[in-house]
């Protein structure tokens, strides 16, 4: 599954591609929305690890503009519910993720991203 929780962690790992290799850009995606259980305790713990501009940018690429540009200081339940939806309910089923630096393509098929590299691309 590629949800934005995972997308916010993935980076390009082609040999020599060590800067500007995050976040990967979505292209030609098919998105499905599916409900999942709201867990505010998880979200509060995870928020410090989120790269916020990468998350808002990726959400916009998937057609969701519900997140504020800046991480709000006041993280009430209304905000956490929006964040929950963006991180855990938008599933990218098909498409491609492209490295902003080296342009390597990582395909997504049946909800599973292919992060394998050819032997000569491994760092």
């Amino acid at each position, binding site marked *: *599954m*590629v*949800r934005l*929780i*995972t997308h916010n*962690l*993935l*980076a*390009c*790992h082609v040999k020599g591609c060590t800067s500007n290799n*995050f976040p990967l850009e979505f292209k030609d995606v098919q998105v499905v929305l*599916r409900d*999942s*259980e709201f*867990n505010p*305790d*998880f*979200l*509060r*713990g*995870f928020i410090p*690890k989120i*790269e916020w501009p990468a998350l808002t940018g990726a959400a916009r690429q998937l057609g969701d503009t519900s997140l504020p540009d800046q991480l709000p200081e006041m993280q009430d339940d209304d905000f956490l519910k929006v964040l929950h939806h963006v991180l855990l309910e938008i*599933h990218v089923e098909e498409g491609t993720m492209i490295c902003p630096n080296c342009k390597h393509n*990582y395909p997504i098929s*049946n*909800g*599973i*991203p*292919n*992060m*394998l*590299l050819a*032997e000569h691309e*491994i*760092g």
Partner: protein
Amino acid sequence: MAPPVTATSVPSSELPAAYEAAHVHEIYEHIAHHFSSTRYKPWPIIAAFLSSLEDGWIGLDSGTGNGKYLPLPVDRPGRLWTIGLDRSRNLLQIAKTAGEAEREVVWGDVLGYAWRHEIFDYAISIATIHHLATPERRKLAVKRLLSAVAPDHGRVLIYVWAVRQDEHSKRDIPTDPASTGSGQDVFVPWVMSDDKTQVFNRYYHMFEDGELASLATVAAEELGLIVGPPADAASLKGVEIRQNGWERSNHYVELRRWQT
């Protein structure tokens, strides 16, 4: 009766990645469904490790197989997220709904590093590193785990199969006297339940007593980490070996990163 485990050695003429592709990855693609049906019960030490983690943490299961550890801990569903990585697409297809819920899974190699550095709070690698065909590659796999987790609290649990089998083991591990101290390379047969004439010989490196902890120590030192309990002095980085044990024919280590 199952066919015996046989001693082998990885030919030096062969690229280890190609050897693993033929003797590990292709086999798991073939046996994925049958294999998965035999792997459903979490091991107690691994379940206890996952239960000890905090709400809000994220982790990597490197070599997740059918994803049987992704739903844990079962009493706190959704409070922490383990992302499953595996080389077998067919096993991931099973893992992505492990425990009847949607999981996050990634198709990749345990020697890859497709992540923001040190972003995870924990990483587990269960019965995976023993499929890598050289000591260098097994060490690199441990380095990848240590580099995946947070420098000030990241926790790592690794399980591998042991030469030393317990009395209930169905496997008799042949040992080459010349290999003492460095483990034993073997083929472990997998017999398909629906067609017993189909036998797949999977490559394993069975670990000697002490070998896994030594591997973890060298891997940590090569990353510039001190191996031992947290130091008193400031500005140091290290790894503590919190557990180093043998259980039911497996060796395991639990590592904890620290930073002062």
